[in-house]
């Protein structure tokens, strides 16, 4: 089971165990990580599970899919080149040690 790190806007880090085969948003929600709202429950309809993938891991995680790419234009916090919706990031063992940064706002 990979361990992923959510870094909050104030710099504190939450290390959580994610399950391979689920999505990153799920790991945040199941562990009560503040700042991942996920109103639509993982259907890329609401843009409230926005994260910035740490520069070191951008290639590993890969680019957003088409539907996600559109939704990223409508996030509450600014879109950056490293922006992803955490509900669209599939967790696998390869993501062990992944760091993502949670933006100031989701709504």
């Amino acid at each position, binding site marked *: 089971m990979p361990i992923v790190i959510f870094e909050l806007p104030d710099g504190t880090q939450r290390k959580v165990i994610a399950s391979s085969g689920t999505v990153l948003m799920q790991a945040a*929600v199941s562990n009560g990580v503040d700042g991942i709202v996920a*109103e*639509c*429950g993982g*259907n890329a309809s609401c843009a409230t599970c926005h994260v910035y993938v740490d520069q070191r891991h951008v290639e590993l995680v890969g680019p957003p899919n088409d539907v996600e790419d*559109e939704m990223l234009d409508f996030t509450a916090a600014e879109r950056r080149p490293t922006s992803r919706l955490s509900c669209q990031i599939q967790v696998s063992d390869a993501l062990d040690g992944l760091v993502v940064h949670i933006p100031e*706002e989701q709504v």
Partner: protein
Amino acid sequence: MSALMAAAPGAPVVELDLAELRDDPYPAYAELRRTAPLAWVPSVGRHLLTRYEDIVHAEKLPEVFSSREEGSLLLRTVGPNLLREDDPEHRRLRAAAEPPTRPRQVRDLWAGTFERTAHELLDRIAGRGEGDLIGDFAEPLAAANLAVVLGLRNASADDISDWSRAMMAANGNYADDPDIWLRAEQATRAIEDAVAEMAEAARREPDGSVISSMVHAADPVELTEIQNNIKVIIGGGVNEPRDVFGVGAQALLQRPDVLDRVVADPGLWKRVFEETARWISPIGMYPRQLTQDYEIAGVALPAGSRVALVIASGNRDESVFERADEFDIDRPHQPHLAFGGGPHFCMGAWVARHEVSALAWPLVFSRLKGLRLVEGADDRMEGWVFRGLTSLNVTWQV
């Protein structure tokens, strides 16, 4: 699992008068949150779940809190539809219907038409110096925009409004009034004909609309499914943008200092939208039915129990929103529940955000100079399942 039409053992029973709820449900909700956050309410025939955290919890468990409520009047009115389905069936229909309502499509495909319609409606009344912003503007705008997004070029805004009203009346027809059923049947038959015609046209020539998107869905959708889902979208799709518009416009006209700030900084319209939807949620509650025994808010509910998620109450929960009864666009950002959550997250959210906060409010407040509420006008806030203003009488300089 068949529906249990009575209180679960151990659930508190609270008598609420429906007429009082229609008038103002918020005091009753505050009392429920304090004393009985899950309570069987005989006049509603469901357990009302009223605290924010419990509602969010239920929304995240759609496999327990099923949308397939038996005996629902909505099912009788429009037939099987995505609102009363669970995944994967719900997902198939939602995936087919949703693309035209996503934010980029709203901006690229619909925004121009929305804007022309809004200007036309204002052109008709601008010279009068007085009007009802619900009946003269928000209702016909919402109806016309809905027709465009759905792909019903063969229906007028008045058709959409009439159909919507007839079906909404049937969805609340607990008194079993035969005239109400008859009018709803006439409306649904008219919608079926209109949808069949436009589905045929979209089959030949895709137009980006909801009907077109469903006709060309990768996972096939039958014509009757398209018809039923268009019915349900018409049933619910007029009043929400209309009601957010009306409530927010009135709130600003009653608070000139806030209005001045928003007019000077149009970026604030978004905050007005989200705060209005939280403060007076256009949809106040929706039903769920338990697929298994489950304990929530301290009550062990048996499978089959009927629960209403009262999002209007969750949006006034003082443990989440300070001074929750106040309209305050500066409150700390905290997700509200007005669009629901989970797989059924409001499909029209992005359409409504654009049509109300990016278009209707800024346009009305810039074109109608010196806008004021008519003193003594009987503009009533009404409803609890759906809530909004019955009218919004205003004057402006000509």
